[in-house]
């Protein structure tokens, strides 16, 4: 506790500095491609951070979290399709819709636990997925292009500028980490963590846990919806594939890989997961054969994920 300088924190600092420096480093290294790679990684990191709030601290393993990526993304694309490009409409719609959907889904699935919870979140997310597949007007399987990024109405903050886009994502990631950190340490976080440890006892000390878990579920949904909003803007494209159940599974893997009950673990997990799949796929087309076993090994032998290996203690890093 007295050692504030731990390997886990060093990695945290390193990753954040790297993220901050990529728009300058990448061109200098003659690898401009890495700017978009890191932008993507950070968006996944935001989504993984949001999942980790409920999964790592609330014990709610949502297998449908990617639905909110899609909801946030489609809010941008569909409004854009109808020539509504103002961010001041798109952003509240993306957030509001994610919140409402998370609220409804939460009311349904939070009455269950364990494997049932996992299956119901998956089923609910698949409903949203099939909704997007069946929306012919909005491109069905082919998805929808986005002509204009969300327009904040000022030339001082223009997402069309790729540097602005990049640092917006970076700032949102930092913001989400800050929010998660405060929430986890707060009274609300106490209830959330306690209910994941022993829900009956939390009720037995006078706390009606359902509503707290529901609010956490909604916060996580909104955070992930925000990631979807950013992803649509970055890629200028949405498709049902954003919320394919594979994506939800990858989010879980990233979180576990990085360290489930650590603050920064999901970010490290996203970086390791996406960089490894990037690198391995350039080495061999059979990269899944290496990647799969690697993930299994980490899950089996490093229960705390990468951050756990680095000696991170829950909550503090």
């Amino acid at each position, binding site marked *: 506790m007295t050692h504030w300088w731990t390997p886990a924190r060093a990695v945290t600092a390193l990753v954040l500095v790297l993220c901050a420096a990529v728009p300058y480093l990448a061109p200098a290294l003659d690898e401009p491609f890495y700017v978009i790679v890191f932008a993507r990684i950070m968006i996944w990191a935001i989504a993984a951070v949001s999942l980790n709030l409920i999964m790592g601290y609330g014990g709610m393993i949502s297998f449908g979290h990617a639905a909110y990526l899609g909801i946030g993304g489609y809010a941008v694309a569909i409004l854009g399709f109808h020539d509504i490009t103002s961010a001041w409409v798109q952003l509240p719609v993306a957030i509001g819709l994610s919140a409402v959907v998370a609220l409804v889904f939460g009311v349904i699935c939070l009455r269950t636990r364990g494997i049932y919870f996992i299956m119901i979140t998956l089923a609910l997310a698949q409903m949203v997925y099939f909704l997007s597949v069946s929306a012919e007007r909005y491109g069905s399987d082919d998805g929808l292009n986005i002509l204009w990024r969300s327009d904040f109405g000022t030339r001082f903050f223009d997402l069309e500028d790729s540097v602005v886009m990049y640092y917006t994502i970076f700032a949102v990631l930092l913001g989400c980490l800050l929010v998660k950190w405060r*929430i986890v340490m707060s009274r609300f976080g*106490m209830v959330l963590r306690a209910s994941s440890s022993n829900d009956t*006892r939390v009720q037995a000390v006078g706390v009606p846990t359902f509503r707290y878990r529901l609010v956490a579920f909604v916060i996580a949904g909104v955070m992930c919806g925000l990631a979807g909003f950013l992803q649509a803007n970055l890629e200028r494209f949405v498709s049902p594939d954003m919320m394919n159940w594979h994506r939800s599974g990858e989010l879980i893997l990233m979180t576990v890989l990085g360290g489930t009950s650590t603050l920064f673990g999901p970010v490290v997990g996203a970086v390791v997961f996406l960089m490894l799949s990037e690198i391995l796929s350039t080495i061999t087309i059979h990269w899944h054969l290496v990647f799969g076993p690697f993930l299994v090994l980490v899950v089996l032998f490093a229960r705390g994920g990468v951050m756990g290996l680095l000696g991170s203690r829950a909550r503090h890093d």
Partner: protein
Amino acid sequence: MTEDIRNADLVAQGLNKSFGGLQAATDLSVSARRGEIHAVIGPNGAGKTTFVHMLSGFLRPDSGKIKFQGHDITDLSPAARVGRGLARSFQITSVFREFTVLENVVLPVQSRQGHSFRFWRPALNDPTLLEPARALLEEVGLGDRAETVAGHLAHGEQRQLELAIALATRPSFLLLDEPMAGMGPDENRALIDFLGELKTEHGMLLVEHDLDAVFALADRITVLVYGRAVASGSPDEIRKDAQVRNAYLGETQI
């Protein structure tokens, strides 16, 4: 009898509960007063824990009523009952094993201060939580264990913590389900003294296997056998009751 009920803090009237074919509570009525300890004894499987679950709201009785301080609480959730001052402990230790001892008591302290929809200030930097939590740990003798992870405590200490968590909600009435389960003789004696002190400020329904403890502490005793109250009365009356001897006391050679 009616006078009893009028003065009582906690009243159960005609509770019934069955699990499939098994009748775990049959027409169970008990009234317990503030400032007194009402003990519930009976052999294993008699339905004592089921009774506590019904009183604390974790199980719904099939029929019957529960009143607390004059209000019908039969339909209230467990959490709402705690809000009214009715708290419980568990027979099978139910602490937050990954939390420190201090955090274990901070949560109930936080609960009694109102809702926990506070998202920004760290709970563990908040003196309004830490001070009462630390004071309570001193009171139950866990003061020097505050920073220990609850799962690492010795069994007896976990039992103390179990009780401390219930007390931290500042209840006016306590439902204690075998608080001495698995404790050593010294710890046992200390706990008997402690419960005796608590009695002045709390009503208490004490489910206990240890009959020495029960006869040392109880003002009234109800004997449960197969979900039925076969006897109820003062410790002296219960000692003399032939039915009790046969049904229960004889069985455990006391």
